[in-house]
């Protein structure tokens, strides 16, 4: 008798609990967005030296696309020069001298246009963040403007170090 009662009680209790939980549980489930991966372990490093983003393939020209050089410099002056020098001197961010010899053109453009994802997921970008300690701000550079910036970097590399595009090959 005692055991039977005990079992019955347990069953009832379980039923009540299940109903209560499922009832409030539904609300909780419907009202919670997926948790931000704040403390999640770093995702596996993608192998691509082209970085992460919309830019998959860049065709480089020789000689330079003259039309891009002026707008590339204007964008640099407005949005980049506060942190990046044209020499190899690091201030807030790395100096630009020789950047096209170190990074693929796609990586450069993805870094400029897809800043937050690159800083979170690209191993090379993460390494730079660890060195510089200031997150590069998203400066809302369009893909077209990033291409102009790249052209300006290539010209700057010729002026600063006498070679360019070595990482592109």
């Amino acid at each position: 008798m005692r055991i039977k009662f005990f079992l019955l009680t347990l069953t009832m209790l379980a039923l009540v609990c299940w109903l209560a939980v499922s009832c409030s549980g539904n609300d909780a489930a419907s009202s919670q967005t997926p948790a931000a991966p704040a403390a999640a372990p770093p995702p596996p490093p993608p192998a691509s030296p082209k970085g992460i983003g919309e830019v998959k393939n860049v065709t480089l020209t020789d000689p330079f696309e003259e039309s891009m050089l002026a707008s590339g410099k204007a964008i640099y002056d407005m949005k980049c020069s506060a942190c990046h020098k044209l020499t190899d001197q690091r201030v807030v961010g790395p100096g630009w001298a020789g950047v096209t010899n170190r990074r693929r053109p796609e990586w450069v453009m993805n870094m400029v246009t897809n800043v937050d994802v690159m800083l979170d997921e690209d191993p090379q970008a993460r390494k730079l963040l660890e060195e510089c300690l200031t997150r590069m701000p998203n400066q809302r550079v369009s893909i077209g403007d990033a291409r102009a910036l790249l052209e300006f970097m290539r010209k700057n590399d010729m002026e600063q170090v006498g070679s360019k595009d070595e990482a592109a090959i």
Partner: protein
Amino acid sequence: MMKAPFHVYSVLLLALAVSLTSCSQQNATTVLEGNAAELTYVAPGEYDEFYAFMSGGYSGQITAYGLPSGRLLKEIPVFSVYPENGYGFSEESKPMFNTSYGFVPWDDSHHIELSQTDGEFDGRWLFVNGNNTPRIARVDLTTFETVEILEIPDVAGLHCAPFITENSEYLVSGTRFSVPIPQADVPITSFKENFKGLINYVAVDQESGEMSLAFQIEMPGFNYDLARNGKGKSHGWSFLTTYNSEQAHTLLEVNASQKDKDLLAIIDWKKAEEYFKAGRGTERTTSYYHNQLDESSGIAASTEMTTTTILDPAELPDMVYFIPVPKSPHGCDIDPTGEYIVGNGKLSADMSIYSFDKLMATIEAKDFDGDINGIPILNYESGLHGILKKPGLGPLHTEFDGKGNAYTTFFISSEVVKWDVEKLEILDRQSTFYSPGHLTIPGGETKKPFGKYLVAMNKITKDRYLPTGPELAHSAQLFDITGDKMKLILDFPTKGEPHYAQAIPASMIQPNSKKFYAIEENTHPYASLGEGQAKVTREGNQVHVYMTAIRSHLAPDNIEGIQMGDEVYFHLTNLEQDWDVPHGFAVQGANNAELLVMPGQTKTLKWEPFRPGVFAFYCTDFCSALHQEMSGYVRVSPKGSDVELVWGLNDENKSAQTSR
């Protein structure tokens, strides 16, 4: 031994029954059983369903709250200076406060009106009146910034404003206090001869939202209190309550409460517009200011206006009427169909509800009961839909749920009453804590109310919260109105004294909210669009510092060559182009405020050195891990010193010589 189990069984069965009930019934009844918290809880990371914009009363500002959580989202500075972000202190924003009385840094904001298209909210702009120095402001709902302030001339206490028409054609704005027009040095006892009341029609540009004073209707010297415009069938008409038809000029508490009835003014504004366009008004010279913010430069500019057009109902027939309304009415509210006009007679035991169709028939039949200064008074009985008998004490304001129900606040009996507009039957009453003024239901004054919630804005707080000394926050109370009975589900404190509020679905505002200003579009004349443009120039004793901010440095951050007697203008451009990265600027000894500069914008702080020495400046908004490092020094030398004007960053100093 056997009794206990049965007892336990019954408890368990009861629990089961309760849990089943609570699961199946998500209606208002369950609130009484304790799920008010569930109805108002907005989980971390979740958004509220509605924005509620509340006026700030004597704060002069507006606050944006989320509903149903009651969370404060933002205080939007409007009529009062705001050192928190430099509004009214930055050189760019000072002109917003210009009036014909000079720079007026405070006002009393009352009634929120959201812009409408076809009688429904469209989420574009918000208008609010300043009571004391009569003004109307426009807030852009993409930036949540005050972008325009228009002064209204020759009125006093612009309380009856800025009530919007169904396509945002006009903001109807009447004077609360009648005054001599034009202003004149006359005895106050000459009120009846010399004092007039103006009802102002402010036109709104349909594309830009820009306001302009179209015409002013000169009315008898009563107090014009509140108004609404017709909608649907009654579009084209305005309805305004008046009090003090006794025309008392002292102890209004007693002397303006003598008559059994005051008057509701009824204006055919389409007729008025016709007269105005036909040149039937009289031009009068006056002075008022129109202040507007240019978004691309972020600079406000003032224009003094000097003429206005007056329409005189004595000379222009079929434009204005009166109808009696019980004693000292306050709110005047129109139901979603546009048919019923509710006169909330605050000192009357009953409420008068008028029928638009009957009013029109009364006008058509010239069923008049005399006139005041040539303005016909409609026969009270003829225009009436009916009387709501003994609904409560001190009815103030009414809103609607779109299901045929009206909700009225009662100040004296401290309650909200729900009633059937057509049948004039009382359906429910709930106490508020304490003494509500306005109430708001999302879309509750439009053609299509969203219903769901009702917010009562209480005037008296007393013991509702932990005490904070003699001065207490005003309390707002949220009711769930989805069921037959209203359910109180939340109390929340508010800022200043909210008079009116309007609530709108978040989906109509959220997608349009601006995240930053594109720096390419910055046309500020002192902007530095790139750190290379940072510099310092001197023009006589005026020194202009063109400074940039980006995480985490200001450029230049070392400045020398400032002298006593100089006026230094720090023009700070925020080079960031990301959401939620403002930079602040504070400099020691500034006797004005700080600047808070949004990404892509330029703002200017004037600084007059107090004594020679080296003074620190820094970013006030915790912007990054290296925010503490975002600082600099400015050196001040005695007047006539030979210290050269130089500026720099990272010891790369420049001067007028080197930067040439």
